[in-house]
């Protein structure tokens, strides 16, 4: 869903740029709490994997394709603040190096793919984790559902931005319906990839999965020396 230059007018692009810059600034502070010597290298690899995975467009029928956005995936693996930074780095590299997504649209793309999918994905994931049994087995399915929901919501937010600052006079109802329909199907792909990747990491190293931390804390009681300072 990389928005090219020209779809949205200048005021809307400036506004999303301000939103994106603010979110990245806040995320830089928030990520400090999520990252330590152990998880920082993993976060770099998660961002790198999201970049690679976004190169894989999968067909969703009628000559249309979709690819992973990765916001929910990154949020569950390395935490929501770090996830915003992961996807923001991906989108910036794509726009500057690969001409994928417009340069004046970087703020828009960070808002849609970096903020909306992370916020929605993480919220749905935390809600499910609260409702479901307190076991590691729920992490991957909850991440998959969160990923699924995040994609059509991002599509609707794009439609909202287009309603405010779209550069072409088109039927907004048709845009909304088509965006929601296609991105619900693309969301299934997002859910499958997210579920499989999260399941793999949970199987190998549940202690590295940010979203699994409260479940591990409840499962095993470990005595640790903690330096309170």
């Amino acid at each position: 869903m990389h928005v090219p230059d020209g779809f949205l007018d200048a005021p809307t692009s400036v506004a999303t740029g301000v939103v994106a810059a603010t979110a990245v600034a806040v995320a830089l502070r928030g990520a400090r709490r999520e990252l330590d010597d152990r998880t920082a290298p993993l976060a770099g690899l998660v961002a790198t994997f999201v970049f690679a995975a976004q190169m894989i467009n999968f067909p969703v029928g009628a000559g249309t394709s979709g690819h992973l956005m990765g916001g929910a995936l990154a949020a569950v693996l390395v935490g929501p603040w770090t996830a915003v930074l992961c996807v923001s780095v991906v989108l910036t590299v794509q726009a500057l190096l690969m001409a994928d997504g417009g340069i004046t649209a970087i703020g828009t793309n960070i808002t849609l793919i970096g903020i909306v999918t992370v916020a929605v994905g993480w919220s749905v994931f935390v809600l499910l984790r609260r409702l479901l049994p307190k076991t590691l087995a729920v992490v991957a399915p909850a991440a998959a559902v969160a990923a699924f929901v995040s994609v059509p919501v991002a599509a609707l937010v794009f439609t909202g931005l287009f309603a405010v600052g779209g550069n072409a006079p088109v039927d907004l109802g048709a845009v909304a319906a088509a965006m929601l329909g296609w991105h619900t199907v693309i969301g299934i792909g997002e859910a499958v990839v997210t579920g499989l990747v999260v399941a793999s990491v949970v199987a190998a190293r549940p202690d590295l999965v940010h979203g699994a931390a409260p479940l591990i804390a409840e499962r095993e009681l470990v005595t640790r020396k903690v330096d309170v300072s």
Partner: protein
Amino acid sequence: MTSRTSNRRIFAVALIVSLLVAGVASYYASAHPDGLEYVAEQTGFLDSAEDSAASDSPLADYQTEGVDDARISGGLAGVIGVVVMLVLSSGLFWAVRRREPADTDA
């Protein structure tokens, strides 16, 4: 603790998977327009898209300038992208991370 995959091993696996996905599997990705592009075409606002100022980048559209073979051109662009991503994001997260206070017992 039971046998756990070491940090080094899991990071190596993640990097190799990323390189294979970007460098090899990407060639087989669907070339169809993505959801947004398709909707833009169907509902009539695709023409409002403008060329990116980066469209003359040597890696524009995930193809390496000057490499004719599409498989190698795309694969190389993917691998370069993965390396750039790894350097930038690892550097960023290492700089942002929380420093543990020096703990001689740890």
